[in-house]
Every structure is written in C-alpha cells, then in structure tokens.
C-alpha cells in the first residue's frame, strides 16, 4: 500500500470486519429472541390489510425458512452468514417474489448520491465558514454566523426537513413536495430527467446541509483558535508571508486533521438522519424502502436494508480512516514499514 502503514491498515480492516459481523449477527439474533413469531404476525397483518393473501403457504414457508424454524440454530446461522456475504436476503414479502437485493440495488444509488452530495457541500461550506469565523482578518459580520450555526447543529435533519418542506414546497411551491424525480419524466440520461432529479433532490439535500455544516464550522473554529497561537503561525507572520497563504497552508491545513477523525464518528448519525429525511420526502432511496417495508411488515426487506445501511456506514468510516494517513503525514511514521 506504499504510504499506509500495514499495522494501521490491518487494525482498520479488522474493525470493519468485526463491525459487519456484529451487525449481521444482531440482525439475525433479534427476531429469534422475540416473544412473538414474526412469520405469523406478518402474515396476519398482510391478511388483515389485503383481505386475503395469495400464495399464503408459499410465503409462510419462505418466512419460516428465513427465520429458520427447520434447521438447528448453528446451521441456520452459518447459512445466514453465507447469504449475507453474497447479499442474498431472500424474497420480499410485500412484493413477492422480488429479491430483496434487487430492491436494495434500485434504492442504493439514490441514497449514496444524496449523501455524497450533501457531505461534500457541507464539508466545504462548513470548513470555510469555520475558518473565517476564527480568522482575525475576516469581516465582523461572519461572527454573527456562530450562534446561528450552533442552533442549527443541535436540530436533527428531520425537523429542518419538515420546516423546509412546508416553507419552500407547500407554501411557496418552489420545489416539489415529494419524490426523487417528476412523475411525467422517463428515467434515463436525458436533460429533462437530470433537471428533475436536481429539482427534487434540492430540498432533501438542503435539509441535511443546513443542520450539518455547523458541525464542521464550529469544530473548525475551535481548532483554528488553537492553531492561531502556535509558534509556526507567529513565525510565518513574522516572515511576512501573505495572510491568505498563512490561512490556507499553515492554519487550515493543520486544523483540518482532527476534524476528519471527528467526522468518522458522526457518520452513523448522519446516515440515520438521512434515512429519516428520505422517509419524509418520500425520496426513492433506502429510507423510503425501509419505511415502506415497515408499513408492509416486510421483514426480509427490513433486515436487508438495515444491514446494507450499517455496512455502508462501516465502509464510510473505514474509508475516512484510510484517507487520514494521506492528510496527516505524521501517522505514516507510526507503522513499521519493511
């Protein structure tokens, strides 16, 4: 791997694997500890909802197979882990007989797209604002943003989502209320479709951005204040370097490091927040899939979606950890490179 120390990499890989294994195991154990038989409940609710259930025997058999009522526990567990590794979560009960993995594959790009977009936007806005808040040469007006950023950070994205939805979609009608693209456009790489996707994605992204940029901004500000007092900054000033150069190359460069570690710990909350935002905007991602599955008591889908989202979170944390040695050269010297 060249620049990443092997021990560090190994440590991260092991943590990733344990995380995924624990998540998969929890998802497997939980229904088995349940005092009620999920298969019966599900079928009962389906029958109550639809009046009658087609293929009831088949579904019940599949459910029992999924919850493994026929094999010894160890066999079930091994089978389950094998299935999970190959992303095989069985068949959806609500849209029987669609593969759960097919449904997830359809929803995943939307979620990943929305997440990447909002994370990148918040990263730049937040850090830039935070740096400006602490920089002694920035206009006084920027300091007003501090309390505003703080208040926004304390609010979960679902609340900001509701407010924005009401104001910008229901009241002002600037943006569509729900969905990921218009009902009249055909999905495909056409300009009309892309336009519709951007138009629909704006509000969900904004509701996440507005409550997360403060996290970066405040962290950045705190770190900048610490960095400002460092000797190397004083020296740089004394050398007569341009203030802007000092800001970028001396201050931000050093202050951004702990920010990245702090971010890795936040990813879980961020993902959960986005699931809820997708649910209220009925955005075609994993959040909506999960919500629909909860409504339909579609347990295989709930299991599959939960697992894939946890996997996504764990992989994101892993990637952030991998990026870290590249940003912070000091960490490279820790590992023994032979």
């Amino acid at each position: 791997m060249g620049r990443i120390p092997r021990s560090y990499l190994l440590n991260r890989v092991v943590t990733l694997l344990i995380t995924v294994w624990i998540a998969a195991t929890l998802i497997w154990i939980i229904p088995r500890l349940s005092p009620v038989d999920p298969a019966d409940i599900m079928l009962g609710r389906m029958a109550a909802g639809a009046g009658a259930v087609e293929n009831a025997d088949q579904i019940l058999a599949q459910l029992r197979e999924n919850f493994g009522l026929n094999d010894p526990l160890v066999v079930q567990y091994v089978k389950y882990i094998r299935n999970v590794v190959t992303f095989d979560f069985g068949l959806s009960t609500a849209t029987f007989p669609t593969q759960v993995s097919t449904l997830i594959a359809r929803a995943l790009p939307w979620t990943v797209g929305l997440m990447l977009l909002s994370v990148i936007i918040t990263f730049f806005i937040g850090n830039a604002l935070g740096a400006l808040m602490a920089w002694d040469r920035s206009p006084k007006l920027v300091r007003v943003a501090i309390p505003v950023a703080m208040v926004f950070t304390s609010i979960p994205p679902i609340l900001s989502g509701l407010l924005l939805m009401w104001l910008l979609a229901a009241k002002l009608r600037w943006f569509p209320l729900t969905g990921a693209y218009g009902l009249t456009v055909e999905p495909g790489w056409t300009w009309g479709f892309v336009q519709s996707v951007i138009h629909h994605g704006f509000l969900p992204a904004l509701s996440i951005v507005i409550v997360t940029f403060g996290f970066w901004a405040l962290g950045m500000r705190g770190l900048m204040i610490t960095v400002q007092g460092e000797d190397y900054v004083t020296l740089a000033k004394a050398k007569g370097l341009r203030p802007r150069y000092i800001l970028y190359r001396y201050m931000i460069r050093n202050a951004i490091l702990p920010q990245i570690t702090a971010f890795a710990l936040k990813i879980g909350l961020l993902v959960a927040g986005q699931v809820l935002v997708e649910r209220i905007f009925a955005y075609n991602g994993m959040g909506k899939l999960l919500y629909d599955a909860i409504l339909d008591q579609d347990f295989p889908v709930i299991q599959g979606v939960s697992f894939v989202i946890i996997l996504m979170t764990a992989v994101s944390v892993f990637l952030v950890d991998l990026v870290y040695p590249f940003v912070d050269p000091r960490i490279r010297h820790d590992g023994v490179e032979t």
Partner: protein
Amino acid sequence: MRRFESPWMNPKLFCGAGLLLAIVALGIIGRLFWNLDLAYTGAAPLKLPPVGFENLRGQEGAWTYPIGTDGSGRDLLALIVIGAPNSLFVGLLASLIGMSLGIFLGFSAGFIGGRTDDIIRVLSDVMITIPPLLILVVVQSAWGDVSLTMMALLIAGFVWQSPTRLIRAQVLSMKQSGYVQMARLSGASTMHIMFREMLPNLVPYLFGSFIANVTTSIVTAVGLEVLGLGPQRIPTLGRTIYEAINAGALIQNLWWWWGIPTLLLGLMFIGLLLINLGLDEVSNPRLRKLQ
C-alpha cells in the same frame, strides 16, 4: 471578585436548564389543569386551527382547543402535555443507563488494562459506527409494540460507547498523574482511587457526555416514532409528527399539527445544546470570557 465565582453559574447553563424545566413544567401543570381525555381520538372537532387562525374550511380556532386539533379529533394541547415529557423521559433514562454502563466499562478498561481493555476498546470502536436507529428498527419490527421504558432500555444499548471511550482515555492519562500516584503510594484501595480521587475530576466531562447522549437518544426515539415504530398507544411528539405527515398535513396547510411538536422538539434540542455549551465552559476554563 469575579474569579471566585463558580463556573457553574453561567447564563448558558441556566437558559438551557430553564428550557428543559419549562417542558417538564408544561407536562406537570398541563396534567393538573388540562383535561387529558381530550387526547383520545374523536374527543374534539377535526383539524381545528389554534386560536386566532383559520383553517382551509374557514373554521376559526376556539379557546376550548387553544392550539388546535389533529386529523382524528384529538386536542393538540393534551397530546403535547402527555407527549413532550415522554420524549424527554426516554432521552434521560436511556442516557442515564448508557452513562452508568459507560462509566463502568471505561474505568474497567482504563484500570484493568490488558485483555479486558482490548475487548472493551474494540467493542466500543465497533458499536460507535453502528447507527442505533437501524438495529432498533429491526428489534421493533420483530417484537411489535413496546413501552416507553422498553424503548429507553433499547436505546441505552447504543449510547454507552462515547462515555466509555471518553472515560477510558481520561483514566489512562490520569493514572500517570501525580495525585493518583500519591494516593496509590499512600495505600488507597483501587475503589477509593477510582471513585474518590478520579471520578470528581471527570464530572464536567461526564455531564457533557450525558447531555450529548440525551440528544442522541431523543433523536433516535423520534426517528423510530417518525418511521411508525415506537410505542403505539402512548402519544409522543414523534408519533404526532408521523400521523401528521401521513395525513398530508403539509399539503393541507395544517401547520399546527406537525409544527407545534416540531417546535417543541426544536426547543428541547436547543435547551440541551445550551446546557452542553455551558458545561464546556465549566470543563474548559479557556472558553470563559475575561471581563
């Protein structure tokens, strides 16, 4: 003589605590003076606006239902009088249990070290990346209805990691400090060192971590409720929002139905934030303003 004033007496801490107490007071006073039977379905006319407003059907708000009613004829005031303290209760209970677990595990890891430390460290590293919401969704869809306390217990299983890490780190650094070495040399027991010598120094951090966890717990609980899980028979703020979204309250401009619970939750989070900022000033003297 300002520098002798206690850092605990700071305005942020007071405002934050005041906000939370106001929500608790709303619950207590509401229970005493308001008819909570109005929280039953059909106890009031449907979709009535708050006093001074008019809904789309041209009905005006009435003082019998001062902040309006929801789509199935429940009085919103009664709903929030019951629901708001519930959300706070879940947050506090979950965080309290998580905190106790965290203190225990953090001290064990930092003090005993070795294998115990490895296991606890890896476990908290792992669990901190798993979003509690997703596991709880699986739990609740397999188990059906849960009580408020049960939900708090479930959430508590996911909020012990950050206090554990925090305390472990602090214990490791304190172990080397002079006063702990001194206590050890003078023959103090491990328990004495842990709880009498070290714990008092950790109090501001613990409070900070506790408040942060209350926020996480409430966010998780509200998340579950908005997904239609959580307690089914007890009014909670999240569930009220869930019902409002499902009934299309946004399109029908029934802003009070989702807006008032949202506002209350927002105030709750701001209150918690203020407390946390106040606590930061206690634990980090550099943040205190020199006046």
